[in-house]
């Protein structure tokens, strides 16, 4: 059977579609988000979803099983399950079991199995690795200072050339000390609007 192959965006669209139909309703809006590339890779590391079916250049392609797995993860998350529990329930599930759990609507695409197939490279064990990409000449940098960033308020970040990573006490003390500054910045309307979306750390 012809196996459908989707890019991450196409896969994401189908996950959203599947979740919109037969949506159980749940408290946390976060789990409705379609996972991003990095989260997908994390789930792959955990065996929650299979590796991409194949690569075209740098583009990873996915199949029906990935769709089933992602929707199943989302459904379990709406039940409030922790990732460890989801891992215990999902790793190694048959397609039939996943399909029951994912409850995909019928019009989401053909339900064929898109498990990774054997590659054409039959004798991979004597495949020669490509030469590594090397810098011409010595690629040594003098030590670079890594700055530590501390978000004080939406729109305000303190950059420190810190002697050591700040611990929780430091962070608390810094936030208290910075409060008057933040107040000033807000009073002078120097900060981005509270409502303006800004990037947050990743949630998994």
């Amino acid at each position: 059977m012809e196996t459908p192959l989707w890019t991450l965006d196409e896969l994401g669209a189908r996950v959203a579609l599947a979740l919109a139909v037969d949506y159980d309703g749940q408290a946390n809006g976060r789990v409705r988000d379609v996972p991003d590339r990095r989260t997908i890779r994390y789930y792959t590391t955990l065996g929650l979803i299979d590796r991409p079916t194949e690569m075209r250049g740098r583009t990873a392609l996915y199949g029906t099983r990935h769709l089933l797995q992602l929707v199943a993860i989302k459904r379990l998350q709406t039940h409030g399950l922790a990732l460890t529990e989801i891992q215990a329930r999902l790793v190694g599930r048959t397609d039939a079991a996943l399909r029951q759990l994912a409850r995909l609507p019928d019009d989401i695409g053909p339900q064929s199995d898109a498990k990774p197939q054997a590659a054409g490279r039959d004798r991979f064990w004597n495949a020669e690795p490509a030469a590594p990409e090397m810098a011409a000449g010595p690629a040594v940098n003098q030590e670079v200072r890594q700055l530590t960033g501390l978000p004080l308020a939406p729109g305000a970040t303190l950059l420190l050339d810190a002697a050591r990573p700040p611990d929780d006490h430091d962070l608390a003390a810094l936030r208290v000390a910075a409060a008057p500054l933040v107040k000033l910045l807000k009073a002078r309307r120097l900060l981005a609007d509270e409502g303006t979306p800004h990037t947050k750390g990743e949630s998994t």
Partner: protein
Amino acid sequence: MTKALLPMTADEMARAQAPAVELDEPGFGSLTTERGGLPLTAMTVATRIDGLIAQTDLMQTYQNVHAEPLEATYIFPLPDRAAVTRFRLEVAGRLIEGELKERGAARKEYDQAIKAGHRAAITEEERPCVFTMRVGNLPPGEEATVRLSLTGPLPYTEGEATYRFPLVVAPRYIPGTPLPGPSVGAGVVPDTDAVPDASRITPPVLLPGFPNPVQLSLSVEFAPSALAPTTLKSSLHAVVEEQNARVRKVTLQPGERLNRDFILRFRVAQEKVVTALSLQPDADGKEGTFALTLVPPAHGNSATKPRDIVFVLDRSGSMGGWKMVAARRAMARMVDTLTDADRFTVYAFDDSIETPKPFGGDQLLAATNRCRFQAVEFLSKIEARGGTEMAQPLTQAVSRLAQDVAAKDIKARDRILVLVTDGQVGNEDQILKQIGKQAKQVRIFTLGIDRAVNEAFLKRLADLGGGGYTLVASEERLDEVMDQVHRHIATPVLTGLRLEPAGLAFVPGSIVPARLPDLFTGTPLVLTGRYRGTAGALALQAREASGAMWSAKVAPDVGGNPAAASVWARGRLRDLEDRYAIDRSDELEKEIVATSLRFGVLCRFTAFVAVDRSALVNPGGQVHGIVQPVEAPEGWEIPGQRLYACAAPMTAASRSTPEALLHAMFGAASEANDGELELSDAGDVECVDSYLMDFGATKQTAPPATTHAPTRGGEDDVRINVSSITQRIQNTTSDWPARLDTLRAVIGELDQIFSAMLGQSQGASEMLELAEVIAKIRALLAEAQPDEAAVNELWTRTETALQSFLVFLGGPAPGQREEFWK
């Protein structure tokens, strides 16, 4: 309703009927046990140690709890020096003997058997220490057991032998660009041009808190032998049983997880290990295998050559936590042993390379006090981060060291590359190919730091570089092996070792290791090889450190270990595979396959396959495939999202964005445990330190483990004292008589601090400076009329010395950080 295919335990029943049962609706799964539907249920490791050879029987049990026929895939480690000599599949009450075949042929046979519907299993080697087991067409509800037989030598150094059995393949960094099309294996990372089989060495990883899925049993039995072990130390909870006066058996406590190496060390009296040649003729008597143990002459030769050393430090993300601390300390202490006559540089790498301030490009600088101080200060600030782009720094280091070969004084200098790393990369062959040819001109010493180290790779590098390898699996162990580490970068006792026939017709080119290493005091060399005809002696020639010739003749002793041929073949295959990685040819591949098949020892170019042809259980061969997820290695502090770091185009850039910095800062909050064993009160082994446990001859009750090793606690105390003295000095008013009084008040404490640290940090530049400051203060206090300028100058110097000493100790004292911004 829950459909049980196999009897469930009461626990599992209760769990299946617990409130979460709404998720176990019809069809959700055939059986939801608490460990999920994972196929591997049990692993048994039974080892017998005879002299310095270990024979291991490994059993893995797989179970199909699903409603469809199963193909289970398990990516697992084995000791890299062990020869896999036998494979059996036990299924449906039958025991099927596996056959060793050329890898392509074996894979084809397995695929055909699965397609036809037979139960079958195949064992393949991906790396000298990474293997893949597949058990296919396992019907629902059935169980299969595979058995592997292994034989390997035990490394022996400084009177101590080590048996190591790895239990997990740790996540490895995979560099390169993804290859087009599907990947060749079942793992989680797609194949890349740098690692064309990345998908075969990257198992999925279990989250912390996942119930232990595999029941592990492990035992090591010591055969009665002249090399009786005297002191036993284990990395995991174990007990010793005395079976009778001469046989001892070490058994692992139940409940251990497959998340780190099992390491068993034992002492063997040094006078029992002597220079000897043992011969083991083949059954037909025409040829045979020899093993030569060479104990280096002990005379303390004080002749030292000046050295050129490039220190390469892996500071990638996987090195986080105790590993980074140990790596920094190890390297700083090596740097501290250098003298003005030596030249060196330090490369700290992740996906870029950094070097301390005075060094630039690939410059080597004389190891003056100042340079060493700056290097040590640089090292003290290194934190783990980023990817493991190891090819560039190693290539650069090797070519830098090799570049002076033509120079006149080159014979007079030792050229040494020191690599400190956990070895967690997948592109071993790429790196070997890159540095292989030039590596012959330098000596390579590798220090492996991890509890699930990629030992095979670090040994391959050390073998290629004619040097040595040392493993450190805890901070405490680092202190124990530091002398050994220093010896490895010191002048060897013997170099340029050559073997000459003196009666024994050995086969030229059969000697393992292929590059005869330099010899160091305390580490005997074991050479193996093949010979033809009758027994005879071997002659050895080498050069002493002073330049004088050294020679010896060793008489044969017929009746070696019957496993000698397997052990030799394994070593030979490793050498040939390394040569293939560096300089491939079809002839070499043929020689590898032929050696593997003739001696019945598995290698990367062959595979063991077992097919149960007595029954057709799944015509058509449609199977449900599961890759067994493995534990995250113990003692790693890397956030889960980055477990399998790959060379994604964004990695290098992402580090410099503010977002990534914030993430790095706030995402790294996890307080992982530092790997120290907690002993229950009921434990019956004595705990000497928090990591390794000593076994006494009699069973003793273990005291509860302390959370910090004694040395660490001591350092904390010292740190607090140094901090408080520093503060007293800083709080003194700037008038010089007051300063003099303060110096008089603290001199006693400074003395105490200095003696407290003397045992641990002798030779560190900070210690030297502290010693000088103390001497100067004493001299100043002894003066009848101290001079104002002298007091002020010394006051400043004391403050600076204390502050660097504080940095050297690892930062300000705990509990004194609240007001750091003042």
